[in-house]
């Protein structure tokens, strides 16, 4: 196995097995029609309620894309974009005023395209303007101050920040709260989760962030992928339990195998 860089064999194995099981989960759900039953987390349900709240109050909803470029935290940003697709569709259909703000120059055109498509699909292309998706600054705290200004000026009623955030996280959450908004958030790193959890009314953590798009859509394809993820977690659990038992018995064979 000298073809593979040493120390990365087990990683490749995990990547392959985990991918195949996700594909199997999708196959089971889409082709075999054995669609798993999955409960939507409260945070996802809250997205729809938040749009409704904005319509009722006649105030806008703010969706923040998170910071950083797609070329570094790719997966997290893509998770955010699928939630954006869902939320902007809801907002367009229900005629809620919708604002997307971003500090990332590379996410800016992507968010703009997705939001525009949502408006076009809802037959409300005229409601989309340059004010819908706003690039506020690529400097972290300058962006943060611009959001602080924005939430007060526009009197937003809901603030969504699911994705990759840094130190600006809690500041924008609290500014939005002060403006009277409900906060819906999500972070996948332990470093950021506490801020989200303390500052938000509803939040997603860890894996839920990556699964957010699937929770939103509820299609068999997406639900099937969640089934695959569960199978993968069972594998990880089994390995941990087995490895612990082996270590207790004085053998580190599994640890050595994982280090391969």
């Amino acid at each position, binding site marked *: 196995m000298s073809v593979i860089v040493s120390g*990365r064999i087990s*990683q490749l194995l*995990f*990547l392959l097995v985990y991918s195949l099981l996700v594909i199997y989960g999708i196959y089971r759900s889409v082709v075999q029609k054995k669609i*798993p*039953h*999955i*409960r939507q987390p409260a945070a996802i349900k809250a997205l729809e309620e938040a749009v409704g709240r904005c319509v009722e109050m006649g105030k806008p909803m703010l969706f923040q894309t998170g910071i950083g*470029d*797609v*070329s*570094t935290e*790719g*997966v997290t940003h*893509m998770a955010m974009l699928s939630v954006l697709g869902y939320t902007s569709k809801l907002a367009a259909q229900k005629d809620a005023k919708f604002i997307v703000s971003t500090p990332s120059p*590379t996410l800016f*055109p*992507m968010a*703009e*395209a997705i939001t*525009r498509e949502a408006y076009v699909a809802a037959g409300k292309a005229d409601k989309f303007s340059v004010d819908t998706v706003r690039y*506020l*600054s*690529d*400097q972290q*705290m*300058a962006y943060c*101050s*611009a959001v*602080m*200004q924005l939430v007060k000026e526009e009197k937003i009623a809901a603030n969504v920040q699911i994705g990759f955030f840094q130190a600006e996280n809690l500041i924008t959450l609290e500014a939005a709260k002060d403006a009277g908004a409900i906060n819906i958030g999500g972070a996948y790193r*332990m*470093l950021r*989760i*506490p*801020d989200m*959890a303390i500052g938000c009314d509803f939040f997603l953590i*860890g*894996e*839920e962030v990556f*699964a957010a798009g699937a929770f939103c859509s509820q299609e068999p394809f997406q639900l099937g992928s*969640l*089934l695959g*993820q*569960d199978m993968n*977690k*069972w594998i*990880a*659990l089994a390995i*941990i339990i087995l*490895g*612990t038992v*082996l*270590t*207790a018995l004085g053998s*580190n064979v*599994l*640890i050595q195998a*994982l*280090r391969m």
Partner: protein
Amino acid sequence: MDYATMLGETVTVLFIIMCYTYLIKENVLFKFVQATYVGLGIGHGLVMVVGYLTSSTFPAIAAGNISLILPLAMGLLLFGRLKRQYFWVYRYPLALLVGAGLGLQIMGMLKASLIDQMISTMSISLTPNLAGFNSVIIVFFVIASMTYFLFTVRGKEPAGSAMNPLLSTMMKIGQYVLMGAIGAGFAASFLGRLAVFMDVLERVVYFIPRMLGLM
């Protein structure tokens, strides 16, 4: 203290105070700070871009690394966002970036976030002391917290009876562990942030003695 430093310190202190007025109410002073910061931020960002292109990219192209013209051209495609009928063109540069982002993040997480975590969890030590006890309890806590993320199992929760009682207990414990982790994490981040706060506040509090050269 020379005049440039004195002026600088004064401007800084004024900016800090103007920025903090946001806490009372959003107002024109904060707006001024914000507009200034955003404006200078854009200028700074653009200077960095020009700096990078002129110091790295253009010399490299001039030195014969012609392949760099391709990303340059792809970058220019991003201007496609300005007109709707052309916005398909921006997909190419972004597809490249997204591909790089997906690959890099997964690549980085495979070891650090999966393999390393599994190995350190299962490396228990059965010594009769606190460290040994902790290492065992960590295994239990990790497993419990992981069950919280079993989406297909969680789906059965309202029915109650459908779920294995052991699993449902584990899930509850997992939720407690996650809550404990969150509570601790929030408190742990406090001190680092407070350090920067103290630094900023000291600039204001000690401003006058410093101007008079007393500190």
